[in-house]
């Protein structure tokens, strides 16, 4: 399966680890094109100049079009379990529109923590509870 790995760039290291695990299971993975830069400096993902220069968001959307599924790495962040950021929310919307499978590594955040958890849940994601073997 062709899978786009999505999530906060603060988890760039984890993205590469998951990519390696999925590749061992014969999946093909897309990761953000600036992932190695973000490994050194996660703040880059918040730097608009960098984002415009690399066109990273547009390229990620285009990858979703090419892929069969997205996998959202929603680790705990800023005290929120299952955190999903704004860019990832948009990616979920694109995947939903294009009728791609949407995998969430962990359960979605609580609505009390992130109001747009409703939209995430309505996109009907498959919750993996941390088990990548469930991707099929």
């Amino acid at each position, binding site marked *: 399966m062709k899978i786009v790995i999505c999530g906060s760039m603060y988890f760039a290291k984890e993205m590469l680890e998951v990519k390696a695990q999925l590749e061992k299971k014969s999946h093909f993975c897309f990761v953000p094109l600036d992932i190695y830069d973000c490994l050194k400096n996660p703040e880059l993902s918040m730097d608009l100049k960098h984002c415009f220069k690399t066109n990273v*968001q*547009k390229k990620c959307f285009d990858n979703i079009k090419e892929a069969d599924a997205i996998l959202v790495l929603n680790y705990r962040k800023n005290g*929120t379990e299952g955190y999903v950021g704004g*860019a990832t*929310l948009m990616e979920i*919307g694109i995947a939903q529109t294009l009728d791609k499978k949407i995998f969430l590594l962990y359960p979605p955040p609580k609505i009390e923590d992130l*109001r747009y958890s409703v939209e995430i849940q309505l996109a009907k994601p498959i919750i993996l509870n941390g088990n990548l073997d469930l991707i099929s």
Partner: protein
Amino acid sequence: MKITICGSIAFQDKIIPLKDKLEELGHEVKIWPLKVKDGGGQLISVQEYYQIRRTANNDEKWVWDRKAEAIMEHFNKIAWSDAILVANYDKIVETPSHLSSHSTSAHSANNIKGYIGGNTLMEMGLAFFLKKKIYLLNQVPELPYKEEILGVKPVILNGDLAKIQ
């Protein structure tokens, strides 16, 4: 120009006159439906539906089915349009204390200028992906996803609809 207005149902009282103004300026405009079917199949106003949804539980399936249908229908309207206009008015929003720097209670209410909710952010992402113009009626809100909003390169109208072209 074909325009789809995006924004919270909470702004309905402002969005309907906004649609009228755009039509007076010669645009073709779509918004969300004004009526939806309730659990018994009866048509109710979208405002009534919004009030029900605000307090709905997870097991009130029809409420969430309507929301899911509305999301996809609005995505289709964006695909139809040349541009989206994000109707981002001020809104009082409750924020969990661990996400707010100024609160000692579990939640704090903040007046967000030019509020854009998660659903509208998804719509902006889709418009960007489909290469549609993205207009923002008012200023970019101070929200955790401000960079994502700016990243889709919206044209900020500061209330001036004549700038839409």
